[in-house]
């Protein structure tokens, strides 16, 4: 009898609408993880153990039953989606997944949910499970998943709630820049720390088949309820908050029907509709997006183009990563003094996306160092010292160092930190030049390592 091979264990840390979920997947095959990363990549962050999590879930991934299996239809009919939520537990099950989470009190009275379950090795099963969990936990944090199309317009966000067939995907498809689409199916709306409402993109998409490009959220200026116009014209009719609340509740994604959940959802919907403008957007599929926003402009307020900074460092870094993924290179202005004298105040760096295998000692890396909270995340720009093979089959570790620092840092890429790219060129005093080759970089690196003890001795 041969010993059974250990089940591979993978993990993914997602931040969607500011809600952080860590999912450990036991038994997931690499192809399944690739599918998940393709879908949730814009919302994935380094799975460092010190990042505060709202949801921690251990999933056993099981092989999916083939669609043609004769017993599958009966199994599906016998196990429709069922969600039971109480103050302490959240349980959800369907024919292809089953999870149970329990509330735990953390530091500063922060509640998180920890649990386990099983899920078919099928992206649709996991996606449904995530939608259920996020729609159940978000209202407990003052947010909600709205069945609607979210669009970014300049520096603000607009949500177009609507049920199936209302035109959400059509609206997304018409948008000139698909990166402005936060989702054509479900967006997160949540009150921020400063009391204002913001809309976040999600990876929960509909027929548009792509979601938001980053964790970045935008100030929510208007909720525009979709309605069919009798002819090719667009009208925006302001609606009172009670009517808006009524309509919003019809688009508030919620699977739990217990009294506490419904009361919570109702209170959030009432608050949102009392504080954010609402209109009925009556339009047809032929109306261009530019015309829709032209008519919407009076309802967006005067501050549409006022620069809205990212809500947190995490949002800023995630957005920077999306630019880098899209353009392959992007400019970055570093702060701090850890790379002096190589870097000076006011320098701009041109970062180039680079696969992990192409990185070598001497390269200057830009990487995402996650903190416990979104505001504690940081972008670090340090020189790579070495890449050390991981022990016992573990992933390799990257050693880095700031030129002006003596301490060498070490991390596992994509787990403790995430390497976004390497510096390809530097711009100083209006001139730009490529970063010297690796030999020059290495000489600088070792020079720095030697120089620091001498300087310390001289200073005594």
């Amino acid at each position, binding site marked *: 009898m041969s010993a059974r091979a250990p089940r591979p264990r993978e993990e993914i840390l997602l931040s969607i609408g500011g809600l952080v979920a860590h999912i450990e997947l036991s038994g997931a095959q690499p192809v399944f993880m690739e599918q998940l990363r393709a879908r949730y990549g814009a919302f994935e962050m380094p799975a460092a153990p010190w990042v505060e999590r709202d949801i921690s879930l251990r999933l056993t991934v099981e092989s999916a039953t083939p669609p043609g299996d004769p017993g599958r239809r009966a199994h599906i009919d016998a196990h429709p989606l069922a969600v039971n939520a109480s103050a302490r537990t959240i349980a959800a099950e369907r024919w292809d997944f089953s999870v149970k989470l329990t509330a735990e009190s953390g530091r500063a009275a922060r509640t998180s949910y920890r649990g386990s379950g099983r899920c078919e090795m099928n992206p649709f099963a996991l996606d449904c499970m995530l939608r259920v969990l996020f729609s159940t936990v978000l209202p407990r944090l003052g947010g909600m998943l709205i069945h609607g199309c979210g669009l970014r317009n300049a520096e603000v966000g607009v949500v177009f709630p609507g049920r199936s067939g209302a035109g959400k995907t059509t609206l997304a498809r018409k948008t000139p820049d698909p990166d402005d689409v936060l989702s054509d199916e479900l967006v997160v709306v949540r009150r921020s720390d400063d009391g204002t409402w913001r809309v976040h993109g999600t990876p929960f998409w509909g027929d548009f088949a792509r979601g938001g490009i980053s964790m970045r959220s935008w100030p929510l200026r208007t909720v525009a309820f979709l309605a069919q116009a009798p002819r090719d014209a667009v009208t925006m009719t302001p609606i009172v*908050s*009670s009517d808006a*609340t*009524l309509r919003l509740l*019809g688009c508030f994604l919620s699977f739990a029907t217990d*009294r506490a959940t419904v009361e919570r959802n*109702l*209170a959030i919907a*009432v608050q949102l509709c009392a504080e954010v403008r609402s209109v009925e957007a009556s339009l047809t599929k032929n109306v261009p997006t530019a015309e829709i926003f032209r008519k919407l402009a009076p309802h967006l307020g005067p501050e549409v183009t006022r620069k809205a900074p990212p809500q947190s460092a995490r949002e800023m870094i995630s957005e920077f990563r999306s630019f880098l993924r899209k353009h392959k290179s992007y400019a970055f202005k570093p702060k701090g003094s850890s790379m002096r004298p190589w870097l000076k105040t006011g320098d701009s760096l041109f970062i180039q996306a680079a696969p992990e295998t192409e990185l070598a000692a001497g390269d200057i890396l830009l990487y995402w160092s996650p903190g416990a909270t979104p505001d504690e995340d940081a972008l670090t720009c340090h020189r790579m010292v070495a890449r050390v093979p991981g022990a016992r089959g573990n992933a390799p570790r990257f050693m880095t160092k700031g030129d002006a620092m003596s301490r060498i840092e070490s991390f596992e890429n994509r787990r403790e930190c995430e390497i976004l790219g390497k510096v390809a060129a530097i711009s100083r005093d209006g001139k730009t030049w490529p970063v010297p080759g690796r030999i020059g970089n290495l000489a600088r690196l070792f020079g720095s390592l030697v120089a620091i003890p001498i300087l310390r001795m001289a200073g005594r």
Partner: protein
Amino acid sequence: MSAWRRDAELPFQKLAEETIVVDPRRREVHLLNETAARIWELLASPQSLDELTATLGDEYDVGESELREAVAECVAGLEGKGLLVAAGTR
């Protein structure tokens, strides 16, 4: 005389004038206008048609028969939507 009270299981939220009532079992949401919201408020405790009419008669400047007819219509409407439960006779 028959009496009713509002279904205590239904979450609701009072707005400035109106009230929103959610029925999770039927997955329905109801927006009650000012008058219906006042009746909903009174039906926190069991009330007969006479009692409701007497209370509202002090608040609204309208004839008793007209008021009684309007209240009966509203109560029937709320009952028809499953928002009220029978509370015996009074």
